[in-house]
């Protein structure tokens, strides 16, 4: 009985029903689009489009991306402004700090790993308190044939001439005031910039290439103490740098 009464009333009803149905479909489409957009972050991360040198104390890459709250406090405390934040092309690395070593390396002139102390989440692990304990990567002589020392050549002038903007804090000038590399002139008989400016003791040394004392050629040799700060990569006067940091490589890795 009631079923028979129902159909005539159903006449005008579809309009609001259609409206709500359309609204629900729209909402689902929008939700899907937003989730889809957020998942685009997987591509750069899983495909490793943008390998980055992370600041001192950074924990394992995957955990690092999770633990970092993307606030940039590490950026703010760095006296040489070595730390930058990731952009959209880094996927889940948006707002995550990295160090573009060739442009501006970490020179540890802050002494007490300020970025680690600033990190509110421990993404830069608080177990580190000294520069010697840091392991960001390892330096490697990438282009031995370009290396001035290996050719026995000296170097005169700024290690990285203008318009290069990178800075370095020279202890012998004023250890609290960073100096532009473009304004600091060297005059070296044989180039040893990577060894000379390395902030970590015993991380790198210049070794003779042959036993001949008259042979001026030297080769930079990286040792286990290397922390991968990238100072050598920044200061290397050849274009591109002859010595580079292998991100997150550990001593003994291939």
């Amino acid at each position, binding site marked *: 009985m009631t079923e028979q009464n129902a159909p005539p009333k159903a006449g005008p009803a579809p309009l609001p029903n259609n409206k709500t149905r359309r609204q629900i479909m729209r909402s689902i489409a929008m939700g899907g689009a937003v989730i889809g957009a957020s998942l685009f972050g997987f591509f750069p991360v899983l495909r490793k489009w943008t390998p980055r040198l992370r600041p001192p104390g950074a924990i394992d890459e995957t955990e690092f991306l999770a633990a970092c709250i993307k606030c940039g406090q590490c950026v703010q405390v760095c006296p040489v402004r070595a730390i930058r934040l990731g*952009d959209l092309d880094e996927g889940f690395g948006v707002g995550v700090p990295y160090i573009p070593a060739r442009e501006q390396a970490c020179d540890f002139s802050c002494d007490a790993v300020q970025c680690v102390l600033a990190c509110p989440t421990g993404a830069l692990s608080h177990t580190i308190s000294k520069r010697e304990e840091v392991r960001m990567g390892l330096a490697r002589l990438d282009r031995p044939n370009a290396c001035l020392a290996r050719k026995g050549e000296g170097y005169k002038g700024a290690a990285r001439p203008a318009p290069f903007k990178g800075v370095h804090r020279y202890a012998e000038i004023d250890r609290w005031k960073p100096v532009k590399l473009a304004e600091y002139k060297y005059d070296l008989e044989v180039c040893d910039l990577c060894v000379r400016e390395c902030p970590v003791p015993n991380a790198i040394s210049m070794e003779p290439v042959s036993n001949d004392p008259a042979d001026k050629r030297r080769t930079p040799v990286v040792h286990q103490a290397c922390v991968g700060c990238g100072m050598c990569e920044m200061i290397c006067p050849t274009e591109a740098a002859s010595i580079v940091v292998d991100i997150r490589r550990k001593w003994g890795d291939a």
Partner: protein
Amino acid sequence: MKLLTSLKIMLGAAPQRPTSYTPEALAMQEAKRLVKGPERAKEIKAAHAEHSSHKWRNIRWATLIMVNMIFVLSFRFDVQLVEGALTASRVIGFHFADLNSAIQVMLAYKVILINLVIGTGTVLFMWWLLGGRTFCSWTCPYHLLAEIAEKIHLALAKRKMVVDYPLHRGSRTVLYVVFALLAFVSGYTVFESISPTGIVSRALIYGPGLAMIWVLGLLAYEIIFIRRMWCRYICPIGLTYGFVGAVSPTRVTYNMENCLHEGDCRKVCLVPHVLECTKKTYADDVNIAIGADCTRCGLCIDACPTGSLKFEIKGLSKLL
């Protein structure tokens, strides 16, 4: 029960007309019913004649800009008063962490971080005092951009150039769960990579990047298709702070007595469902505290010609 209803409405339920009223409310409804046509028209005209205010909006915009500028200038001039961005910061040495970002990080990282708990605690207490979603309208830089986009949208809509396609408010609840699950399962703070709050805050402090394209895209979409899409239907930060606001002492209250039920307040509101009680016979009491989803932006207070909506701090009015 009241709290539950307020939470349910925030999560997406449609507000219902009350089934029972307090005797005071009934008496007032009756008294108002006696005011008939011309007299009511005169009342409305009189109320509007002396009313035009942007007081709270101006105070709020000034606050929002100031808070964000403190972050920007503190870094620019290296004052170290406030370090960090809106997601997490240190204010004169004290850890502050955005509640939602902290939840995302802990879900993804699966470690309870003591600094974050401290930072979140400070912030939780502050936003509990100030009223939960107060974060949205008084601090979030994207909110200000979205408000400007909304103005453009409304201006275009007036000229019939765009139409608002509203969504279901339950979307935000669903997305909240999805983003929480995504963070937990994937181990990445998925939401953070698209959160315009974080992106704009960092863009202001550290300089803009490609990520701003996403934000501008969102704003364009809000202008053309869906009024206040992000804040209304998507942002999990709003929902997180909404829960805080459900129990917070700072709130907007509604008094039925002088209300002319024109709905000016609902027209300007980001979350008009919280103002449902201002409809005729939708208030079950003479005084009503506006629900959890309210951002305490004060637009309704500015819009109300009769002073029926007010800011209130729970308990304080009784004390005074």
